[in-house]
């Protein structure tokens, strides 16, 4: 069986940054397994700009951002296999994969970085009643048709969900000649960036209907109309039902980390993030198996994916140099008041570098409050904020200094703030 020291599953933004992180840390025996016919993952179809402000200090489009990484991979002569689907990973890191030229094959890895990304929530999972005609697509599928194939999936469009992909597709479809009638959002606020609401909707006078959702679907062959209704405190108000004729419904209703392989190999997953539970080194419960990017938790900025993945690469190399043996003293990192989850969800003080980014999301919109960190029950950090929304991942930096001198049993992150009522 072929042996490789470090295998990266997925050649999207996370995988590529992880590879470079590992390469820069001195590892040479690396292989990327990518299922598509090119490196770069979903960035290749995200042709809009706005990527890379943090990483490169300029605004790039998705393909440009991906190209920066894939050129570097090629320059560094790092091995990658395209058109290669990983079908199984065993607990002892035997990877089974398939591609047209090699058939079904196995690789024994010493360390693995999981970077499989995420998937869009489909109609079925949303349980929208009605008929099942053609014309209902996830926003990402429509994006692929338009941006990769040059094909329009429809002409009169309603978009359900105001996440960034939905907003971006409202503009794309409009620019390519479709009529986008409205964006419908179940929540009273949009989870998309303000910039996208202005530049993708307001620029083209596309209405955003907050606190509304799609309640029925009409059309036997091709979509003919959707019915929308107002949502109040989680309940649909039937008297507000309204028929919107359209031939296309795009769904932008959330992303789910793609952890089928992780589950197969026995990796513990978080109910909150749907991604692996990891420690301060982004290592899962299986030693030598790391996770980063959207397979770990869904990010809103690719720059943070790159940062996180680069660290996973570095940490994987540390593991390869010195596979930790025996029990580490790990303490839980808990999500307290107002916090939905944290990544990492546990940490080991000895293994921590001088500082550690902790990423989390809040559960509602808050204004003028504080992010607080507690070591045991002692507050060790209190950082003010103007606004915190569920759509925006928060990152705080814990330093080793703050935690030293405490007999650390647990860390808790919580909010001190009032819920924003409007």
């Amino acid at each position, binding site marked *: 069986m072929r042996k490789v020291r470090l295998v990266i599953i997925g050649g999207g933004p996370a995988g590529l940054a992880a590879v470079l992180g590992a390469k820069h840390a001195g590892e040479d025996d690396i292989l990327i397994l990518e299922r598509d016919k090119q490196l770069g993952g979903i960035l290749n179809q995200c042709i809009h700009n706005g990527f890379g402000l943090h990483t490169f200090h300029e605004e790039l489009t998705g*393909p440009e951002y991906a190209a920066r990484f894939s050129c570097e991979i090629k320059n560094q002569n790092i091995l990658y296999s395209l058109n290669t689907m990983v079908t199984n990973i065993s607990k002892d890191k035997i990877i089974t994969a398939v591609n047209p030229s090699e058939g079904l094959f196995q690789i024994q890895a010493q360390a693995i970085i999981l970077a499989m990304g995420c998937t869009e929530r489909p109609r079925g999972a949303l349980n929208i009643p009605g008929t099942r005609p053609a014309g209902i697509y996830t926003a990402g599928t429509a994006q692929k048709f338009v*941006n990769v194939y040059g094909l329009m999936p429809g002409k009169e469009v309603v978009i359900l969900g105001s996440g960034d992909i939905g907003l971006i597709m409202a503009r794309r479809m409009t620019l390519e000649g479709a009529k986008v009638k409205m964006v419908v959002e179940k929540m009273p606020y949009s989870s998309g960036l303000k910039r996208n609401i202005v530049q993708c909707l307001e620029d083209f006078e596309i209405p955003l209907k907050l606190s509304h959702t799609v309640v029925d679907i009409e059309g036997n062959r091709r979509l003919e109309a959707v019915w929308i209704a107002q949502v109040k405190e989680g309940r649909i108000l039937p008297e507000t039902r309204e028929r919107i004729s359209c031939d296309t419904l795009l769904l932008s209703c959330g992303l789910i980390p793609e952890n089928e392989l992780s589950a197969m190999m026995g990796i513990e997953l978080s109910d909150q993030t749907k991604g692996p539970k990891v420690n301060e080194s982004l290592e899962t419960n299986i030693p030598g198996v790391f996770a980063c990017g959207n397979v770990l938790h869904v990010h809103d900025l690719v720059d943070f994916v790159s940062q996180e993945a680069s660290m996973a690469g570095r940490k994987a190399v540390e593991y390869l140099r010195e596979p930790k043996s025996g029990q580490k003293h790990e303490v839980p990192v808990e999500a307290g008041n107002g916090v939905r989850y944290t990544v990492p969800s546990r940490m080991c003080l000895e293994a921590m570098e001088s500082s550690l980014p902790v990423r989390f999301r809040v559960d509602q919109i808050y204004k003028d409050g504080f992010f607080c960190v507690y070591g045991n029950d002692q507050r060790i950090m209190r950082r003010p904020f103007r606004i915190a929304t569920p759509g925006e991942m928060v990152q705080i930096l814990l330093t080793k200094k703050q935690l030293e001198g405490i007999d650390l049993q647990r860390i808790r992150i919580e909010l001190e703030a009032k819920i924003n009522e409007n």
Partner: protein
Amino acid sequence: MKTKELTCIGCPMGCVLTVQINQGKVQSVHGNSCLNGDRYARQEVCAPARILTTTVPLAGDDNHLMLSVKTRNPIPKNKIFACIQELKKVQVKAPVHVGDLVLKNVANTGVDVVSTQNIG
């Protein structure tokens, strides 16, 4: 004197900005929570501009039917559809690289359209 309302895009606060305009000149900006809001309002009212991204058909590569492109610099917001119209007639042949010129001075904006992909 004219009054215009804008949503600031600087951060998730999304401050509603009220801009007073007199003879095409910004007199005052209200509603902003920080200096970025003021700056944004003045730019957005006087000369709103956007980077335009789209795709054009690509010939000569089996794996790619379309090439993604962008305006190298922001173009005036009201020229977006004029630029798209001009790009409707454009086809590119592979190989092509990031930054290669696709269309010069699109819709007389003085801005070039360039490739954002490496193909071939």
